[in-house]
């Protein structure tokens, strides 16, 4: 498996799209930090990049990369290698490179300009989000043989988690606003890793105005530290479950 990771890394590090991603991230983070006098304002502006751009690039890049290396995967399957090792090898390779891109593009500026606890939480939730969307991308990719369809599924997932889900959540909250909804809200926000990432950072930043309803409920219910522990654990589940399902499907897939 380590050899597979090595070859995937070798392949990805020469990839221009990944380079463009790093440049985009560093431009936006350096730009936002330099424009805002207040560092925490810079971070809250960067939050938008984190919650929208990072998931999108992670899921799309991974899906496209998976289908582009389909030949490589086929070649490996004919070799005496376990399918689970092959998929996990490619997964780790892609995940590591996207994490590296994230840490260079956003991590470095945050450590330079901010360096506070909030910054570290920002980086932690960004890393988790990256891995979650890489996992989801693998799930989308093994579901179909067709590249266009795979990318379609990935786009839908991204759309769902960044936009549609919040719309549904808002509708539910609005429709049942006469009832006590705290517990339901907590449960519902666990169903969306992007929400969890947002709540986690805002709990640390303590800007209640930006927290929104779900964040406020989290804060009230768990207090900030327990809330953070819970959101981190749920996010880890979000990393593990999609890739586990993808592995099960891939084991039985006809290539």
């Amino acid at each position, binding site marked *: 498996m380590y050899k597979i990771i090595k070859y995937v890394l070798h392949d990805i590090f020469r990839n221009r799209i990944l380079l463009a991603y790093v440049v985009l991230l560093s431009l936006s983070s350096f730009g936002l930090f330099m424009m805002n006098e207040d560092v925490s304002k810079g971070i809250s502006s960067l939050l938008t990049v984190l919650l929208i751009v990072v998931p999108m690039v992670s899921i799309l890049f991974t899906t496209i990369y998976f289908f582009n*290396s*389909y*030949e490589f995967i086929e070649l490996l*399957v004919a*070799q*005496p*290698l376990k399918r689970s090792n092959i998929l996990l090898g490619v997964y780790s390779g892609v995940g590591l490179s996207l994490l590296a891109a994230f840490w260079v593009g956003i991590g470095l500026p945050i450590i330079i300009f901010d360096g506070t606890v909030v910054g570290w939480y920002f980086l932690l939730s960004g890393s988790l989000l990256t891995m979650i969307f890489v996992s989801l991308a693998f799930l989308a990719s093994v579901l179909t043989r067709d590249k266009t369809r795979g990318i379609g599924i990935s786009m839908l997932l991204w759309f769902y988690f960044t936009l549609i889900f919040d719309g549904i959540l808002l509708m539910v909250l609005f429709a049942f606003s006469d009832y006590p909804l705290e517990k339901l809200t907590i449960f519902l926000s666990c169903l969306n890793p992007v929400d969890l990432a947002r709540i986690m950072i805002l709990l640390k930043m303590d800007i209640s105005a930006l927290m929104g309803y779900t964040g406020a409920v989290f804060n009230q219910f768990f207090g900030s530290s327990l809330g953070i522990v819970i959101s981190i654990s749920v996010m880890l589940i979000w990393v593990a479950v999609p890739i586990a399902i993808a592995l099960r499907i891939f084991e039985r897939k*006809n290539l």
Partner: protein
Amino acid sequence: MIQIEGLQKRYGKIQALRGIDLTFNLGQVVALVGPNASGKTTLIKCLLGMVIPDGGKIIFDGNDIKGDVLYKRRIGYMPQIGRYPDNMRMGYLFGMMKDLGKTRVKELFDEELIVAFKLEEMFGKPMRALSGGTRQKVSAALSFLFDPEVIILDEPTAGLDPLASEILKQKIQKEKDAGKLILVTSHIMSELEEIADSIAYIVEGEAIFYKSIAEIKSESGEERLGRALFHLLHNLKCTR
């Protein structure tokens, strides 16, 4: 060496394999022959664990291959269409395959075909820049690289130039004499006549006969393999 028992595979509505029984032994060169889409490639992919069969089993050297991957150390495979990572250079590809299969060879890698096809001159080229024929040469060289006991060649000479296919045929003969089992699919009868000793004829996912070439010829009374097969199939159709 390889026993296939009642192998079945269905893709959605299409029944690709309907219970195939075949046995292959070391020292044989078996040709899998049949119309397009008759299930030859599916059969090969089942042998390699790339396609998981729905029913039946494959015994490789006494062990069921289900859930096993180590048996593949003893198989070399040349796919019908060799597809490789686009950006990878040829030399790097060979280096990577050797690295991944380090423990598969006892002494030396079998690089005879790399030398005979003069692939080293093109080691610096990325795989996407290669012609179809050159890619076939790479596939062929890779399938023999680990000096495996079983070699599976899916339409090996399609797209190869006459010189290269002659080199490949000689290599097949040489490996056969060394006591290896070679499975080959092809549509070119004259070529199979040269290299193969038996023919398994597959139609719509069934092996309708499996005989040595000498038998086929004497039964039909024809000298040329193509005509002999035609006769045999015609007779089979009449008796059915």
